[in-house]
């Protein structure tokens, strides 16, 4: 059956509910089975055993796991993700404050990765059968074999410390302050009309976004080249040649759009992984996003915060999958309704 864009969103929403429930049960139960005390790190040195038990009771950690889960689920139903043990603040507030940083970083990283991937993929195809193609192929294998966090460190050492070309700490220069309106600094600096700050934000985004992009670029590059090979054996390419169109025009106007479909699917999957990659990249570049927040939560065994962020990650991946599916539909006329 052929679906419309709205149909896909509706179906995805229906699937999302049980998916989120399963994820929430898994995260909740696994965290509680770990041999680590969530309250242990949050007591002063002269606290007594009785005070510790009292705190455990106040926070409900002495109740059976199913009861704890039911209470937590009830809270989520009311839009309350609970209170962070470590930070003593609402989990929702913490996540909402951190989310724009991650979304901004991933958006720039994804854009950079897609542009570089498509550009290099097309170039690699154009160079087919030459030594340049072999070099590009080898280069893509090397880039792929290095994980994002290692790229992050290498880029800091090379471009940050070595030639001191780009900054690598935080989101903006230490001497600049921009009023927070949306949390997206690229937008906030423009709203404030502060161009030097905008440029500083761009500079600070360059290395972390590039670190993330490097995980995506070679994959897009290789899939796109492979799709282009498949596309070039189609009749319409031969027909385009017979019509006297230039090779450049055939590639960019006719082959690329048709070869893009597998690349779109790949981008959807990889964008989800890119969110995962932010965990270490945000820590290394001191970006206060949800990846950084998750690492702090894990270190302190902050159960309510870990649960909240895990659910947010899950929602993000579900949304991304939906977006990709809709994009796929838009790009592939065969799947559209008559």
């Amino acid at each position, binding site marked *: 059956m052929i679906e419309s864009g709205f149909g896909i969103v509706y179906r995805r929403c229906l699937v999302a509910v049980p998916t989120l429930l399963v994820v929430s049960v898994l995260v909740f139960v696994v965290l509680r089975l770990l041999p680590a005390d969530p309250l242990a790190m949050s007591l*002063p040195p*002269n606290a007594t055993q009785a005070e510790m038990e009292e*705190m455990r009771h106040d926070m409900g950690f002495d109740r059976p796991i199913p009861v704890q889960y039911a209470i937590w689920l009830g809270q989520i139903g009311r839009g309350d993700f609970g209170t962070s043990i470590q930070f003593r603040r609402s989990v929702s507030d913490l996540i909402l404050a951190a989310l724009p940083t991650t979304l901004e970083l991933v958006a720039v990283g994804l854009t950079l990765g897609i542009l570089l991937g498509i550009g290099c993929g097309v170039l690699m195809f154009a160079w087919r059968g030459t030594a340049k193609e072999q070099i590009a192929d080898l280069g893509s294998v090397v880039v792929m074999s290095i994980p994002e966090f290692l790229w992050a460190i290498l880029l800091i050492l090379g471009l*940050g410390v070595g030639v001191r070309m780009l900054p690598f*700490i935080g989101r903006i220069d230490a001497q600049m*302050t921009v009023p927070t309106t949306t949390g997206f600094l690229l937008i906030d600096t423009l709203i404030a009309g502060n161009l030097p700050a905008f440029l500083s934000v761009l500079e600070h985004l360059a290395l972390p976004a590039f670190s993330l992009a490097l995980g995506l670029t070679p994959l897009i590059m290789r899939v796109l080249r492979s799709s282009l090979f498949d596309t070039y054996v189609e009749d319409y390419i031969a027909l385009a040649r017979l019509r006297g169109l230039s090779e450049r025009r055939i590639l960019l106007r006719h082959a690329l759009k048709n070869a893009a479909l597998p690349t779109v699917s790949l981008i959807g999957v990889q964008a989800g992984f890119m969110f995962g990659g932010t965990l270490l990249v945000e820590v*290394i570049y001191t970006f206060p996003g949800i990846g*950084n927040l998750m690492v702090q939560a894990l*270190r302190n065994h902050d159960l309510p915060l870990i649960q909240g962020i895990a659910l947010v990650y899950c929602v993000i991946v579900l949304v991304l999958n939906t977006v990709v599916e809709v994009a796929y539909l838009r790009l592939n006329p065969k799947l559209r309704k008559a």
Partner: protein
Amino acid sequence: MAPLDRRAFLSLVGAQAGVAALGLPARAAKSDAIAVAYSTDVPTWDPNARVLANAQSLYKCVFDSPINQAPDLSVKPSFAKNWRYRDAASLELELELRDDAVFHNGDKATAEDFRYTFLERPKAPVPQGGQKLDTSSIWRRVKDIEILSPTRVVMHFSEVMPSAVTWLYFMGSYIVPKSYMEKQGPEGFLKTPVGSGPYRLAEYQRGARIVLEAHDKYWGGAPKLKRVTLEIVQDPSARVAAIDGRRVDLAVDLPIREIARLGAEAGIVGSIDSITDIVIVEATRTGPFEREEVRLAAHHAIDKQAISKALFGGKAVPIDVPAAHKTPGYPENFHFAYDPNKAVALLKQAGFGPGKPAQIGFNTLSGFFPNDFEMAQAIAAMWKKVGIEAKLEVIEAAKYQELLRANKLPEAMLYPWGNTTGDPEMYAGYLLDPKSIFAAWKSDDMGERIQRLVVETDPQKRYAGYREANIYAVEKGYTIPLFQGVKTVAYQSSLGFTKYDNGWILPQSYTLKA
């Protein structure tokens, strides 16, 4: 700021790209502003809520404690000008407060704020599912705070609390403004915290950035550095890169091996300093460690000097009791010898030898304090030489706490203990008191000794008692003290850095050289 037109925009982009291409640092330091690569963030901007040791320097920038410490750790007045017990039983502590302390919002800090901070807030009921302030445990023995005048208060205790004065300059003891807190509510306060410390919080991004601006009306005079940006860089290598790339003026908690390299660079000073934190091997009454001979053998087998030389360039000061040198609880004339032969003999007495090594579990953290895992490996190797076979396992801090609470720690655990005050109660008083939730070793004989001291109000008798208790604990093998902790910093030579013997990083005490 007026929006820029397209031409100006392109010019700026071009100029920026040009600067970047030239390889020049984008950050131009101002004469009264610095950037710091700091290792930890505050858990919350409510300074009474949590007592994490690493966050204390940050709180001290924004909030005032009633009493303070100088770089050499001598005690000095702060919000309280002077203090004394006004009764023989030490149940009434009278403090005279400053009349010129002002909060960042312009309100005057008074006795009402003191009462609110140390009595009303800690005793306030906790809503369902909420968490008590840590100060509610710390000050549970305060039954009332009497206000004699806007600058005079008396703390009334339900039981003696000989460490009360120490706690007034230790963790969690920061004055918060009563009227502002009540008006804003806890959540509002966290968004825009207000203290009476030398800096006000100008900007905060959790886990990433703290911007402090000088409090011009600070009673001690406005700090020389008007703006301090603390970049929270959790990764040690990134902190090294930050100072190496001259992106910051100061970087703290760097790997030991990097300090010498950084210090050799022109314009950077690297330093490894011994501080009042300590590193110990916590012993438990388990397996072979139930035998005193085995515990003592484990201590005699450790060559602390060699470890200090190999892992800390000789800068980690070995200790013989669980306290830092030159603190009141440290018996300077006591020495526990490194003697592997004696270790072998003790193990033989306990029935262990080359053919039958004492097999123990040995847990350590990794990356929690400098060279912790490497130190544990070195100790395990030294133990192996005398006949103790340690199964080394790396665990997380949260798991350590879980095992500690459940009395399930293995025979030995390498652990750091923070104490910025130097007061012996904050070392042995919590580490060796079986009633303490932080004590790994639990025995009645040690408990009796400590319990006598936690109610001893005569400071000299109290200190002498702790010195004796410390010696007793080591001679019984209840604890294996190793070293004082180290603080590693690297800073640009233009920064006038002030070293605190307890490792505090306080920008209010720094200057920038011309």
